[in-house]
């Protein structure tokens, strides 16, 4: 059942929309609507009640941040509604706005990330489960901001690596794989990070990521 997630997709470039529909379908999602503009997106979200929306920031007719506005609006109507926002650019400001409601189930990725099918599909699933998928560029900026303010000065380099991946929304398993360390080591690092940053550690992965992001966003 997990793989029968119903997706609404909004992307105005035909090639990319087509590619995304194919990729999502191949990976077991059901694309219930693929639209190319803001008003149709809104209608599809209301009519189809999907499990997740994958939305391009810039959409016609205004070609400004219409997709982003629709995403935020959808989450206002239905708090915690999973949205994965794709964009040609990542902006800290937009990341902040998407994270502002503190509900999780939010993703914000560069369009290039679809090159890596495996990771992209994993990001969509994770957001649908209520997780967070922040683009590495967003996280890197957040961390350098945190570094500049000395918020991460107590962390060891390894802990900082773990923090970076965790903040992007990667699972413990994915972190251990990427850093080639054991999952128990990852758990230990995470506990140390939460201790040093004086954040309350919970077993809920999603809460944990949100806590870290809001700490860095401060």
């Amino acid at each position: 059942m997990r793989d029968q997630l119903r997706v609404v997709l909004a992307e105005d470039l035909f090639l990319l929309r087509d590619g995304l529909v194919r990729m999502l379908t191949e990976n077991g999602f059901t694309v219930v609507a693929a639209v190319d503009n803001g008003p149709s997106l809104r209608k599809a979200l209301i009519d189809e009640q999907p499990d997740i929306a994958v939305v391009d920031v810039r959409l016609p007719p205004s070609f400004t941040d219409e997709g982003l506005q629709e995403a935020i609006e959808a989450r206002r109507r239905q708090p915690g509604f999973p949205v994965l926002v794709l964009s040609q650019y990542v902006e800290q400001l937009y990341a902040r706005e998407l994270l502002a409601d503190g509900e999780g189930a939010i993703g914000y990725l560069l369009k290039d990330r679809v090159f890596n099918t495996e990771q992209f599909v994993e990001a969509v699933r994770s957001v649908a489960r209520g997780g967070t998928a922040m683009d590495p560029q967003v996280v890197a900026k957040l961390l350098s901001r945190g570094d500049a303010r000395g918020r991460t000065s107590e962390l060891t380099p390894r802990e900082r690596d773990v923090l970076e991946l965790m903040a992007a929304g990667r699972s413990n398993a994915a972190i251990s794989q990427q850093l080639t360390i054991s999952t128990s080591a990852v758990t230990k690092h995470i506990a140390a990070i939460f201790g040093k940053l004086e954040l309350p550690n919970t077993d809920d992965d999603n809460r944990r990521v949100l806590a870290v992001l809001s700490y860095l966003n401060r």
Partner: protein
Amino acid sequence: MRFRLMALPRALAVLCVSVAGLVAGALVVVSALLMLVGIGWFLFPPAVALLRGVADLARRLVRLAGVEVERPYGEESGTISLLKARSTWRDLLWAFLDPAIGTWAAALALGMPLFGVYGVAVQPFVWKANERAGGTNSYGVIHVTSTATALAAIPVGFLMIAFGLYIGVPLLHLRARWSADLLGSSRTSRLERRVESLAETRADSVGAQAAELRRIERDLHDGAQARLVSLGMSLGAAERLFDEDPEAARRLVTAARDTSSKALDELRDLVRGVHPPVLADRGLADAIRASALDSLVDAEVSADLPGRPSLPVESAVYFAVNELLTNAAKHVGPAAEVRIRLGYRDGVLSCDVVDNGDGGADPADGTGLRGIESRLAVFDGTLTVDSPVGGPTHVRLEVPCAISSA
């Protein structure tokens, strides 16, 4: 009250300057006539200098009366150039016309209160002596022939003082406005200067544009374009290797994917430098918020704009503020706190940027600030820097522009 009383010495000064102007003007005319016999060539420049000195005094009085007037002189100093200078002839015109047109105003502003004082304080004691000497005593409408009429003149005197003080300031203001017409620059010289500055800023902006295009071309050439070439080569090699060495081909394809990501990154940076996405999406305030978030300084942005200015103005102000944020991050460091306030009043878009640094910024030696200045000059915008040693540094950008309330 003090302000009204100050009108008296000012009126007196205006009268004195008028007389001085007449004298200096006459000297200029005489020296000009003496040119016919030669000696005037040497007398003319000092005479003009004297007239200019007097006119400068008059300008100060005009400004005291609350009327803006600029000094119209240029670089000219030789006899010929002084003869040619429009301002010389306008000064001369002022010297002879201004007393004729405006003296009554200053005289009234000064004379009414003084005559009032005479009526209140002097006339009651001197009218008898005056009559004995055979003079006629009249004070305004009152013919003073007895103690009763002398006393009756006292309230009239008070009235005169009050009225004189009441109309003194407006009279001087009126007079200053007339004088300013001749003392300031003529319409023609103002237009000449305007054309000069337009030609200058246009050349600057054309130059800047050309440099920007060159930069973009170079960035594309060295960056994205080169990456795409290497991408094509990797894919070509992979195509050949697919059959004999699939593993190597796969590595090449992976490398090609990375290369395309890098090319996209470079294109993104390029677009950011030309037309930042948030600026396009949301306008000035949010674009500045976004770049503050990117620049690692703590910035508090407040905006009170009725709508969006034109795109070129938005972009100029955005990049100017960006430069200032970069400066703050560089000079103050990560502890920098910047307050940015956007406002729009009377057709002028203003942006105040205040940081918590140690100050001491000098627009003359910073290429960054110079760059901002010329960027804004295209729109007749200005940059004012107030950066006392010890801080804080306050930079104010002002750009006249139209914002239609959306």
